[in-house]
């Protein structure tokens, strides 16, 4: 009798323990994927807000360019080293002078941001989102002698920043570049 008892090898406990381990692995995977999915959602939202911030900066710059096209062209011409009162003479090399002054272009985009023009609604927390135009440069310029017109292609670089007060995420930054064509009658 004693010998028989010693030989009994039950399967219930090993089976249950194996099952329990499997269930726990499954549950851990569920929790992990839920956390990942939540983080992914927050990340998407963060990107969305930062992207709209950068678009807002571009919008402000476009408004300024449409209001002050003459000054923008003059600043672009000077940045290449040419006289703003003469423009680029047809046949000239781009940046031939080598003594361009980009200061006027910097002054031009210096106030297209939320620091100079904060959010209009006082209820909007300024730390939620901010934007700024970070660069504005001429990438090509020529004079069309037939139409006596100066044509400049310029590049606007904008940075949008968004901060979410959820998920312990750092500030998200998105950069956006837009190329515009400016014209000025010579």
């Amino acid at each position, binding site marked *: 009798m004693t010998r028989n008892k010693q030989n009994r090898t039950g399967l219930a406990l090993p089976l249950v323990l194996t099952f329990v381990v499997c269930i*726990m692995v499954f549950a851990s995977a569920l929790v992990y994927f839920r956390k990942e999915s939540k983080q992914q959602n927050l990340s998407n939202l963060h990107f969305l807000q930062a992207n709209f911030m950068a678009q807002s900066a571009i919008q402000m710059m476009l408004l300024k360019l449409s209001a002050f096209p003459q000054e923008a062209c003059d600043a672009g011409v000077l940045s290449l*080293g040419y006289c703003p009162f003469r423009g*680029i003479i047809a046949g000239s090399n781009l940046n031939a002078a080598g003594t361009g002054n980009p200061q006027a272009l910097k002054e031009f985009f210096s106030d297209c941001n939320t620091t100079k023009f904060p959010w209009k609604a006082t209820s909007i927390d300024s730390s939620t989102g901010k934007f700024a135009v970070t660069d504005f440069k001429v990438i090509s310029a020529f004079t069309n002698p037939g139409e006596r017109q100066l044509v400049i292609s310029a590049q606007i670089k904008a940075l949008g920043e968004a901060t979410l007060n959820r998920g312990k995420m750092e500030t998200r930054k998105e950069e956006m570049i837009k190329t515009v064509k400016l014209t000025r009658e010579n």
Partner: protein
Amino acid sequence: MTDHKRKGITLTEIMLAVAILGFIILPIFGLLNYTNRGTREQDAEGIAANLAKEEMNRLMFVISRDNLLSGAGSAQAWSFGADYEVKGNKFTGEYTVFPFNNTELAFAIPAFKFHDPMGCNNGIEANAAGALEAPKTMTLAEVYPDSADKCRLADIRLVVRWRLPSGEYNDISQLQLLARRAFLDKE
């Protein structure tokens, strides 16, 4: 004679197994319920973000100036309507527009020192470093005196809320998007 051949489960083992299963399975069921609800919430939040993006794109680039500015300063219903339903979840949204006045939009513009342009050979600036004066400031109202009261820049705040079929709208299940729109006139 048959006694010594019995191999299998004792009553104690069965009771122990049932107890272990009970202790483990019950919390696991709770966890499953929790993750299931969480997944639905995540799904709804993702849909809300997509709807918010669609709506903000419409407000930024599609809707006309007059339509956007009508009711400026107060909350307006979004274009999807109240309780817009996706996968059984309900979504609602509102936007508020805050227009800038043209007199407060004072921009800095570069000022160039006047000199005889004929002194610049082949158009190359003779004194590029010294060609600038201190920047001037000019408001949009001065640039466009005939249409000074026409709004040219506005902030937009969009708030989207959502709820699961079993829940209610609350302050947690909501997201906010901000943007600034310029109205570029061909003048």
